Structure formats: C-alpha cells, structure tokens
C-alpha cells in the first residue's frame, strides 16, 4: 500500500525578536522527521533560530468568503487607529 507521508506547514523565526513566519511545507512521516526536513529545506543558509512544524490538517483557516463578516467591522472602528485622534504638534512623544 502506498500511503503518502503527511504534509506539515513550516514556520521559521529568523532572529530573536521576530515572529515565526510561514515559509512553506514539507512531507514527513512524523514530527521529529518534519523538524529535520524543515531545517534541511528552509534553513540551509542559516536563516532561522526557531522552527515550528504543524500538521497541515491541524490548521483551521478563515474562509475568504467570510472576509467581510470577519474583518470588515474593524474598518468601521476607526477609533482603534492612532490617526483618528488629533494631537497638537507641540505635544511630543504621543
């Protein structure tokens, strides 16, 4: 029987202080192998201090069709944005 090695999504943190970034995927039979495959594939040029691998099947993604419902209301809530508030120029550090 020819079953496929499962797919894993790979996230790399290039430097301390940065977040993990999604860089692609690898096929591996298990977690340990996935980390090693990710290291060999995505950090060959020393581009990473930390690697996360997650089975692709474990990721829940928002539906682009729902984008309006999920994300549009934020566009109305302008009070969340710093530009909504007028502060006189002479007041510094704010």
């Amino acid at each position, binding site marked *: 029987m020819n079953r496929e090695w499962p797919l894993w999504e790979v996230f790399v943190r290039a430097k301390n202080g940065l977040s993990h970034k999604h860089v692609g995927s690898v*096929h591996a039979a298990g977690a340990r192998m996935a980390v090693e495959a990710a290291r060999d594939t995505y950090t*060959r040029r020393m581009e990473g201090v930390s690697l996360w691998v997650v089975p692709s099947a474990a990721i829940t993604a928002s539906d682009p069709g729902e984008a309006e419902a999920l994300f549009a209301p934020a566009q109305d809530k302008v009070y969340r944005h710093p530009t909504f508030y007028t502060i006189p120029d002479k007041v510094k550090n704010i």
Partner: protein
Amino acid sequence: MLFHHAVRLGDDALILAQRLSEWCGHAPMLEIDLALANIALDLFGQATLFLGLAGEIEGQGRDADALAFRRDVLDFRNCLLVEQPNGDFAQTIARQFLFSNWQELLMRQIAAAAEPRLSEIGAKAVKEITYHARYASEWVVRLGDGTEESRARMIAGLDWMWRFTDELFDAETGAPSLRAEWDARIAHTLAEANMDMPKPRRGVLGGRAGHHSEHLGHLLTEMQFLPRAYPGAVW
C-alpha cells in the same frame, strides 16, 4: 605523527562524503536527498580543512586538492568503513550510524586536544557531526522498528558494516578509549529499535595502513580522473 593524524581525519571525511554524494538525485524522498547532501557538504568541508592542514604540516607544497586527487590507494588512510558501497538506504544508514557516533566522540576529544589547529577544526566539526549521528540513529530506529522488510534490510546493513568497526578503536591508529561509550550508544539505539547487537566477529583492518578494500580503487578512479588526465590544468 601529526601529518598522518590529519590525513586520517581528512580521508575519513572525504571518502564518506564522496559516497554520500552518490545519492544525489536518487534518494527515496526529496527530503532525504537534501539531508544526505547536507551531511556530505559538512564532510567535504571537514575534509578540505583537515587535508589542508595536513599539507601545511608536511610543508612540501601539497594542498588539500593535491592530497585528495593525486594520491593512490596505498597512501589513503581512511578507515574501511567509509569506503563501503552505499547499497540500499539501510546499508547507507548503517554506515552513517556506526561512523558518525564514533566520529562525534572522536571530534570532541580532538576539540579538547592540545594541538590548536586540529582542535579548532574539531570544535567546528562537532556541531555538524552531532546532527549526523542523531539523523542516522533516528533512521536506524525507523527502519529497525518499521516494517518487516525494513527491519530485514536494517539488520543486513549492520551485518555488512559490523566487521569494519574494530578498526575505529585500533590501539595505534584508532581511539580505543572511545569504545565503551560508543558501544553504549550503539546498544541504546538498537534497543530502541528492538534489534539485537550484531554478532561479534573478526574485525577487518588495513585502511589506516593504506590496505583498503577493493572498493577504494574504483572510487578513486572516478574521483581523480580529471586532474590525472589533465595534469597541468587549473579548474
């Protein structure tokens, strides 16, 4: 003698790297292709440094390339283990498992040794080899405790390579002090794989004295062809 020591270390790395790079484009899975190439590149790097150092110590104008491409079998000092053919993936893993676990212990010793140029190279190499040993050990477990077929092949692979392990601990040219720790590592991984230790048997020696297996001649023929066919050429 320091020159011979550096040559042994360089030749081990060079011949094993040459073998591993034969897998390029042919591995069971793309991810494995990348991993084996990584290990080969690390080893080519070590070979270049150790052979370069050997040439310096000798002081006769031979650089790493001169040593790699112009010596014949009698002057190569690698152990017999590394020149064994790749066989199937299990045989390749068996060779890597036995060698890298030894090389890691050896390189730790060298990194802590008195000779500064040697220890500098050793210190860099330890980090790389730790990964090689772990990679190979994990595959021994996957194959040994995988399917019936993989188990049979893993046993066969270790069986092929086992007769070449005594040479690693030879009193004069090996590292006898490492034997106990190496045995323990090997036993630990094999136990995890639900496998028995291979049966003890007579060790085959000679590599350190330039008396190799029939394989090395063919390997060198291929590796050295261009520099030998075009002696003055710069590439």
